[in-house]
């Protein structure tokens, strides 16, 4: 579904990603872990097509199409969803209206008729239950004045409404208390589907207690330095990121000899 090969990327001329390879198949849940500043969000934004994040080398295909050639809106319409680490506030636009526009733009892209009010409302109600989101939140402007937890829940709610093929969750767990974390994890778990892949980006093991990944990758200095099963996350939790650094340091030394 998503195949990334040797991606290098820069921001304002500064090299951030140094050759990333990643293969994600439908139904799989991958986790990318890594210390702050290692390039996790950069990878997510490169995949989503954020302006200013320049891919200098490598390729990425998504459902057989060249991802990097598509404008961000088409990537979204093709089924790529990013739950932002820092969701943006949009004053004056109600959350419902925003989501409705998004859903219908995607349908238009696929040559489908817009959802009528009844069908839309039905889906809205259904998905609201999934993430325990309150009706009153949806009539408010997108993310405006939402608490940290509400913003994150709203991201997962949008994911539920848009039914993506690939969802990238960038630190969806950060800033959540344990109850909110459970709710969000429960929501995401219910969205697991054989045709849908999920890429969880996280700093901590916490979320992975509730959302078991099939694969774990460690990102360090813009490179995936280790990949493994879910036990890798536990190892990281136990030993901290320093152990990776040490390991890498050692490798580097060995190579130097």
């Amino acid at each position: 579904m998503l195949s990334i090969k040797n991606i290098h990327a820069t921001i304002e001329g500064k090299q951030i990603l140094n050759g990333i390879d990643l293969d994600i198949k439908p139904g799989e849940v991958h986790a990318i872990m890594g210390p702050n500043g290692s390039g996790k969000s950069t990878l997510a934004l490169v995949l989503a097509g954020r302006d200013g994040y320049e891919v200098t080398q490598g390729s990425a295909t998504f459902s057989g199409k060249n991802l990097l050639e598509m404008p961000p809106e088409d990537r979204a319409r093709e089924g790529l969803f990013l739950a932002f680490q820092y969701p943006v506030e949009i004053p004056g636009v109600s959350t419902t209206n925003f989501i409705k526009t998004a859903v219908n733009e995607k349908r238009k892209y696929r040559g489908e008729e817009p959802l009528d009010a009844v069908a839309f409302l039905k889906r809205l109600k259904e998905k609201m239950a999934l993430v325990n989101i309150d009706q009153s939140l949806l009539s408010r402007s997108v993310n405006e004045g939402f608490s940290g937890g509400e913003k994150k829940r709203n991201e997962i709610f949008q994911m539920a409404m848009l039914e993506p093929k690939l969802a990238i969750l960038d630190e969806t767990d950060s800033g959540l208390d344990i109850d909110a974390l459970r709710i969000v994890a429960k929501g995401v778990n219910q969205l697991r589907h054989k045709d849908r892949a999920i890429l969880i980006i996280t700093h901590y093991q916490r979320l992975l207690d509730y959302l078991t990944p099939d694969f774990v990758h460690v990102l360090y200095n813009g490179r995936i330095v280790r990949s493994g099963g879910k036990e890798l996350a536990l190892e990281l939790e136990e030993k901290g990121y320093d152990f990776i650094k040490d390991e890498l340091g050692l490798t580097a030394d060995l190579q130097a000899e």
Partner: protein
Amino acid sequence: MKEELNTLEQTVSSDYKYGFVTDIDTDIVPKGINETVIRLISAKKNEPGWMLDWRLKAYTQWQKMEEPKWPNVTYPPINYQDIIYYAAPKQKEQLKGLDELDPELRRTFEKLGISLDEQKRLSGVAVDVVMDSVSVATSFKKQLSEIGVIFCSMSEAIQQHPDLVKKYMGSVVPMTDNYFAALNAAVFTDGSFCYIPKGVRCPMELSTYFRINTENSGQFERTLIIAEDDSYVSYLEGCTAPMRDENQLHAAVVELVALNKAEIKYSTVQNWYPGDKEGHGGIYNFVTKRGICLGERSKISWTQVETGSAITWKYPSVILKGDYSIGEFYSVALTNNHQQADTGTKMIHLGKNTKSRIVAKGISAGYSNNSYRGLVRASKWATNARNYSQCDSLLLGDKCGANTFPYIEVKNTTAIVEHEATTSKIGEDQLFYCRQRGIDTETAVALIVNGFAKEVMNQLPMEFAVEAQKLLAISLEGSVG
């Protein structure tokens, strides 16, 4: 950050759709202003002596006055001797009906989306069309007159209803009110006149469409609306002008009079030529609009959607004289490229238990500058006066500016005045967020802008709300990414 500037910098790509010129024989008075010109205008309109005297008095006053310098706008000095004060499309002296209208004029207004054909016309809207200095046609006059509603050009009102004109003209905006009002009083050429008799609820929207056509001309129209006891009228004005490199002056005066329990709803969709991307040309829109709630429990409501003009300077105001009267001002002012707007309102509370509400939304893009200026005054007699003001600014990009100048003068301790203001910005982050959800930039901007302006748009008559919404989107087309 650099990327952000680049995408936000790309300004309007869409063309102003109404920028064409109509090729029609025009009767023009030589450039410049002096007593002879004023006498000539008055003579051309075959005016009674009292009208000419009024004009000459205004002209004398105007010469003693100075152009206001306090608005937050800049423009080179205007040469008042370089303006044509009277330009009228030549046509038959007296039209018997709309069928006799010059086909070229008919085509012009059809191109502007204004059908003068009563059958084809939006049902329920009567229209008066003013081209340059004169009213060229008014529809549904006959049907309206059957219920006692007078809807005609100001020139005709001066001839046919001199008592009403004498009584009310200048009663709300005195000729010496300000520099541009005095200029208008001296040289005004036409405009619309509406009179709603006692107890009549006007069954259709009344509207005037203003069009500037002649080069180097100015447009100086006067509109007067009188709503007698227990009457209601909803009135709408629209306007466009050709694209030219030179600036053209539009200095209008609008006066509204609401008697006991009368209600006047006045809506404007202002789309004068705004000038090009570099800021060349465009209309100077220097307008004085004021209504008086003369009677008890009367109501005047101004709604304006301002997207055009190089410079807008206008403060539609309400004098709340009658006890329990209500004044409202709903405004969306959008500026793009190098446009400048200094607009707002004045709510003058004189009567007891008077209420006013101000909702002003400013949208700035490009290099434009958008200021809200408002005055709320509660006099010492205005027991229990209430005002609520909400002023919001939305910025697109970071080369534009927004300012709020709220003035509050309260002389009665029981009066309550509330003011709220917000400023927000459409940034690259918001646009990317939308795009990540499958909403392209243009749709995203329209979504945000319409959301921002919704409260005001909801006040417009239904037939025009959709049009106005499109206008907002078009005016911003290409202003981002």
